[in-house]
């Protein structure tokens, strides 16, 4: 082919962002070690790695949150140094963070335009602001009122508003850090539609997600990090999923498959073995706007998976059982005795622990140490007059740090400084310390890496083996199927199925979630 050299870049266009040999050290840790990373226009590039691999650090290096020790960042071929996200954003690199960084008490329009409000006569031009934000939102096919309060929308919509805000600044590069971690299937599809629109308009997109299906669905290119080092850059179509997982964790991960086999073999044992005792039983439990009258029973040592979309009532039911919200009517019994679960404290007295899906806002106390977080529920239960002796605190902390493989410099480290997966483990440790009889885990594996996920799943399995009941909620159906002895499907605040987990497929479960098909033959109260 006779082509002029000038067209060569069209075949393989110059990267918008090029980071070369970036190194960053924190006291005692080499967070990034000579890592290179590129972003091409009109391409979705996924950044993968376990917690602590350096993904967040790389993003923060790019957006100027951290200053780099060595290496070069080029934007459109020019060397740049940003002293903060505002500068990076002005240069065309926008970021949407994992936790929505918006102001819930302002309107959607105000959030989209925050800091860039159109002005007139030295004041804000409200009409222009509403108009502009409405344009942006409709560009994303988001049908929401710009004048409504952000808080009145679901997390998913808030996430899309955050993206709308990011693209309004004429981004050349858009960084999406775990944008899907709180979205359900439909919302993810909506988000991906938006991402594809942006991609077609030539924006370079950096996508971070722990959901490998999503990574494969949306991205063109993958970069894998491990322990602060670059493992490699691959084209998505050329990398098999098993190879990707291996690249990420650096070891064969057959743990999960083993686990699945184990659960199913014990399930068979249970079927032939003696019936276990019912631990908790809810009768016509109701809360207005949350769940319609619902029955549920959980046996000792049983793992019950709650499946359903966001808003189906799965979290709402869990919160009632954990005493976090109060039921309007209905009765809960523990071992056949009616109990009151009006506060988390009362639930804890009955050894029922609810681990919230909102790990940061309702779970860990981030400015306290790992040790204090681990002993908090136990100490609260004992009351302030009976402090746990310091020696015992240290023992507890040390044993859980080891048992759950919590990666922290020591027990005195602030939980704030831990990665998401490790914060989750600290929260789990807090609940395990009170020796619960029923552990309610609401999305315990959301936004954490595959290694930590496997560890948590293994833990759940082991706990149930020892007689603890578990109510397990996850948006990932594979996970629900892998761990649960029994699966309860909720839809539109009603229970639509309650069936033993034998040979159920993801597709079958999806059908139940989507269509409800309340087949009466399936609605076996498993231990009737």
């Amino acid at each position: 082919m006779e082509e002029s050299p000038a067209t060569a870049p069209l075949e393989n266009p110059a990267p918008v962002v090029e980071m070369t040999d970036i190194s960053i050290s924190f006291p005692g840790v080499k967070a990034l070690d000579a890592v290179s990373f590129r972003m091409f226009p009109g391409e979705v590039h996924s950044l993968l790695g376990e917690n602590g691999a350096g993904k967040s650090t790389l993003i923060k290096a790019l957006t100027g949150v951290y200053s780099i020790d060595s290496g070069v960042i080029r934007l459109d071929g020019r060397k740049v140094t940003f002293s903060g996200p505002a500068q990076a954003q002005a240069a065309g690199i926008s970021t949407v963070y994992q936790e929505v960084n918006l102001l819930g008490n302002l309107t959607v329009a105000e959030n989209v335009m925050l800091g860039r409000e159109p002005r007139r006569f030295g004041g804000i031009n409200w009409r222009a602001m509403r108009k502009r934000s409405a344009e942006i939102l409709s560009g994303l096919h988001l049908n929401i009122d710009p004048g409504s309060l952000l808080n009145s929308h679901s997390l998913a919509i808030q996430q899309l508003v955050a993206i709308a805000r990011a693209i309004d600044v004429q981004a050349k590069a858009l960084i999406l850090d775990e944008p899907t971690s709180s979205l359900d299937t439909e919302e993810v599809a909506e988000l991906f539609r938006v991402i594809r629109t942006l991609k077609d308009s030539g924006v370079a997109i950096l996508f971070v997600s722990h959901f490998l299906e999503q990574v494969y669905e949306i991205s063109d290119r993958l970069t894998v990090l491990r322990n602060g080092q670059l493992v490699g850059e691959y084209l998505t179509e050329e990398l098999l999923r098993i190879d990707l997982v291996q690249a990420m964790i650096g070891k064969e991960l057959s743990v999960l498959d083993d686990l699945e086999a184990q659960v199913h073999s014990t399930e068979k044992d249970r079927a032939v073995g003696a019936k276990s005792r019912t631990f908790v039983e809810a009768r016509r439990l109701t809360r207005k706007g949350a769940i319609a009258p619902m029955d549920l029973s959980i046996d000792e040592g049983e793992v019950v998976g709650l499946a359903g979309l966001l808003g189906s009532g799965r979290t709402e039911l869990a919160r009632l059982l954990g005493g976090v919200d109060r039921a309007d009517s209905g009765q809960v019994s523990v071992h056949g005795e009616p109990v009151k679960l009006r506060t988390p404290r009362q639930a804890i007295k009955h050894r029922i622990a609810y681990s919230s899906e909102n790990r940061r806002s309702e779970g860990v106390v981030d400015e306290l140490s790992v040790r204090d977080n681990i002993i908090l529920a136990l100490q609260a239960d004992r009351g302030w007059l009976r402090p746990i002796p310091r020696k015992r605190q240290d023992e507890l902390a040390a044993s859980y740090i080891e048992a759950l493989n919590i990666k922290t410099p020591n027990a005195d480290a602030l939980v704030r400084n831990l990665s998401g997966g490790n914060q989750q483990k600290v929260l789990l440790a807090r609940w395990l310390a009170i020796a619960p009889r029923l552990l309610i885990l609401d999305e315990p594996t959301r936004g954490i890496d595959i290694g930590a996920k496997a560890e948590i799943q293994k833990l759940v399995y082991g706990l149930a083996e020892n007689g603890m009941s578990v109510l397990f909620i996850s948006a990932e159906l594979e996970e629900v199927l892998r761990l649960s002895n029994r699966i309860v499907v909720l839809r539109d605040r009603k229970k639509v199925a309650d069936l033993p987990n034998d040979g159920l497929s993801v597709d079958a479960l999806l059908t139940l979630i989507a269509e409800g098909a309340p087949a009466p033959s399936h609605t076996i109260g498993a231990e009737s």
Partner: protein
Amino acid sequence: MKNVLNRAVGHRLFWPLVMLAALLLINVIAVPGFLSITVNSEGHLFGSIIDILRNGAPTLIIAVGMTLVIATRGIDLSVGSVCAIAGAVASSMILASPTPNNVGTVTGALLTALVLSLGLGLANGLLVAGLGIQPIISTLILMTAGRGIAMLITEGQIITVNSVPFAFLGSGFILGVPVATVAGVLIFALAALLTRRTAMGLLIEAVGINPEASRQAGVRARGLKFSVYALCALLAGIAGLILTSNQTAADANNTGLFIELDAILAVVIGGTSLAGGRYSLAGTLVGALIIQTLVTTVYTVGIPPIATMVFKAAVVTAVCLLQSPTTAAALERWRSRLATRHLQGVAAKAGAAR
């Protein structure tokens, strides 16, 4: 060695302590004998330092309670009014008694005043924890109403008390040390023990940092808040009695006036955030000492009384500036630049030598 210095500078009490030292230094320059402590014929300690420790005691006592309230994300604006009420109650009881010099009479009056203070604290707690009203509003009610209540008790008069046992509280000595100072030290130590030897401190901090997470962990936030407001008012009552005894008069309008601001300042200077959460009683101690030393400095240096408030504001601003994260970052950059320049200088010299 350098490491030790860096750690010291990074400590949250570093700048408050530097400020305290600087203030003391100013005083020593103005009055060379400032630091000297003398013992008089009765074995009592005298000197400017002793004055600071005695006159600062009421602020310290209140600031200790305020620290715990602030740690739970609260604030108590009513402490000054509680001071006035406690003083008014005790004074009027002693005045009405036929035997004002009887220890029993005085003890009864003091106990009544303290029980009433505790009751006022429980009322604050009821509004904040029981009814969920914002702390600043809840305690503003008592702040305003309290002086009126004190006025009713004293029937609008300034009650002058002539009672030897009562005067002991404000101007007496125990083993040569002023009673107020002893009370301040004891209360500080007891509060530290109460919160750090039990789990109260941990639970207070947890509630202050993340109320919802604490609730879900089973922490009884309501009970804790009740306790800290009650404790804060009780301590305000004690401080009010000391103040009244020291002035030998109960003045509904002026006893403990603006002391809530001094107490809040002491807490903030000591490094406890008004946003709640982690608190430092040691920091509050240093903060209270700074505030009292400031007042003394105004007199020793001879700053005209009309400029006192401005001077106080300047010092407080300086401490807050030094503690702000932005200033800390700027100082850090400045230090590292100096270090680089120093290294370059060393390298240049080494090069020249070769």
